């Protein structure tokens, strides 16, 4: 049964968005999401997570090319608009495609930033000798004593609200986890034979870290990036839903979900498609992480 579903999932995301989105077409995305959840629930079988992830990624990047209108263009009437208009008169279908891209880009950029900071700080901390370890332990404790959401709220207060602020905040709240993971691994790998050999050849510690040690930790870093991507998407959508996201009507999945929930009785299509997109990302990400983690013995 799962093997028959596999080709469906290859084209599923694109299929959902190109079919008519009125009744009963808008039921297709949530049904596909439930099927995906069922397909990834057990071990083995075809790589549904990877396939759906790939399709969603392509859709996020290229979706704006098929958007019929801009995200801020205003219309007087809702005739001829697939998902209708929002309260200000903007086309919801186009806003969904742009919002999907924005959320994905913000989450990915934030996770990438966090991963980069995590790698650098993990390296710095591992280079510090034992007496510095206490200091780093206290630094981590200080950092972790404040809940991540508080960093977001503090950051949104202190910095100018916008896409770049969101990326920076996602980055600076996600690095401690990776730094901690790397600290242990790097400390262990620094004593390995190849590192010793490089040291004897006269390489500096930094060069050893970047050219010898980090390539051995690619899987760990990549797994962390994917985990952070999932949590960043959730965080970005939640903050946008609360009204703390990018201002001036920047489209986002969180905003789409907010619009959808507001009018769920009159127009359930918007909410169902938005939540299906969102769940599609998270479920496929988690399935892919599980599979990848097991394959490379990272998690």
């Amino acid at each position: 049964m799962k093997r028959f579903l596999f080709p469906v999932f290859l084209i599923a995301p694109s299929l959902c968005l190109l079919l008519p989105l009125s009744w009963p077409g808008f039921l297709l995305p949530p049904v596909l999401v439930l099927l995906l959840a069922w397909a990834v629930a057990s071990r083995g079988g075809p790589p549904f997570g990877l396939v759906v992830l790939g399709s969603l990624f392509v859709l996020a990047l290229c979706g704006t090319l098929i958007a019929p209108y801009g995200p801020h263009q205003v219309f007087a009437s809702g005739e001829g608009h697939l998902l209708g208009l929002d309260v200000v008169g903007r086309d919801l279908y186009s806003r969904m495609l742009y919002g999907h891209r924005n959320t994905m880009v913000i989450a990915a950029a934030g996770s990438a930033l966090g991963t980069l900071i995590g790698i650098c700080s993990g390296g710095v901390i591992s280079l510090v000798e034992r007496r510095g370890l206490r200091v780093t332990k206290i630094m981590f404790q200080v950092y972790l004593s404040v809940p991540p959401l508080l960093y977001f709220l503090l950051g949104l207060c202190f910095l100018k609200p916008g896409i770049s602020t969101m990326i920076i905040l996602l980055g600076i709240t996600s690095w401690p986890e990776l730094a901690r993971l790397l600290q242990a691994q790097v400390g262990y790998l620094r004593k390995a034979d190849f590192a010793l050999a490089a040291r004897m050849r006269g390489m500096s510690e930094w060069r050893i870290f970047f050219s010898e040690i980090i390539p051995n930790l690619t899987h760990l870093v990549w797994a962390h990036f994917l985990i952070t991507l999932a949590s960043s998407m959730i965080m970005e959508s939640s903050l946008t839903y609360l009204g703390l996201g990018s201002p001036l009507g920047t489209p986002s999945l969180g905003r789409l979900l907010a619009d959808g929930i507001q009018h769920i009785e009159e127009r359930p299509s918007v909410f169902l498609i938005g939540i299906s997109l969102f769940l599609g990302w998270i479920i496929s990400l988690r399935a892919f992480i599980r599979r990848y983690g097991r394959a490379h013995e990272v998690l």
Partner: protein
Amino acid sequence: MARKIRAFFALFLHSLLVLWLVVTFLFCLLAVLRGNPISLYLDPRLTPELQDKLKLIYGYDAGHFERYVRYLGNVATGELGVSFVHSKPVTRVLRSAIGRSLWLGSFSFFLAVVLCGGLLVTSNQRGFPLLKRFSRFLVPVILSLPAFTLAALAISFLGVRFDWFPIYGTGSLFRDGTSSWAQFGDLLRHSILPGFSIAIPLSVQFVAYFEQRLENLDEAPFVISARGRGVSERRIFFNHKLRTIFPSFIQLCGLYLPAIICGVVIVEAMFGWSGFSALLIDATMARDYPLLMGCSIWCAALLIPGYELADYIRARLGEGESWQ
């Protein structure tokens, strides 16, 4: 005994050091990024005398270093400044909020534990294969739902459409003069929707967390020997397996301590519980820096000893790895 007192004292000093670092970190962040925050909030149309007086009241009349020293002194005595928006001392504003957050957090945690326990028990019994399949399949969906979705759907359908439960606040407006039991019942009724909005995804996370550990225990020697001795499956589950994973449960409590103490932001905001987290959101929207700082410090002050205590209890109960 002396060793225990020394250990406790070391713990206390360590917590104080971390708290001082948190206060300094926040103060410097504010000074670097925003300068004197009162200039952002004060209406320049006020007379200069009134502006100076307000600066004095809010504690923004001196330079950065003097304000820092004064702020440290105030924090040590529990004075966290005056909130711009509420025009009241921050401590007074927080005191009423923290009770609501604690109640909601504890109530949801209790519900989550009960739901998790129910799911674990029923999915482990032989008579519920469908439930096991169902939970296996629905777990990734519920785990992936953003926190606000369940709450928003609960409000729209159970609250507005069918009017089964109240959707706003911690109690009825005109609850004074009724008996304590009636007031508690009113509080419970208002806690049901927010409680379940938090508890359902939380219980699913707990189930995912514990199921893996419970599965691994099936091959444990003590379980095999108990089975060999003829002990029933139910007794093995309750008396043997659950007891083994109890330290993990304490670790979990430690992990969810921030949510229990500081509240769940989204649910508090949507259901109108003026708890800790909702205050934070208000402070962010209104750029109320004293309140924001006060909340952060209070958060840190509650969480640091909480984490240390969870760590200590878990270490005493024998789990190897630290939460750190």
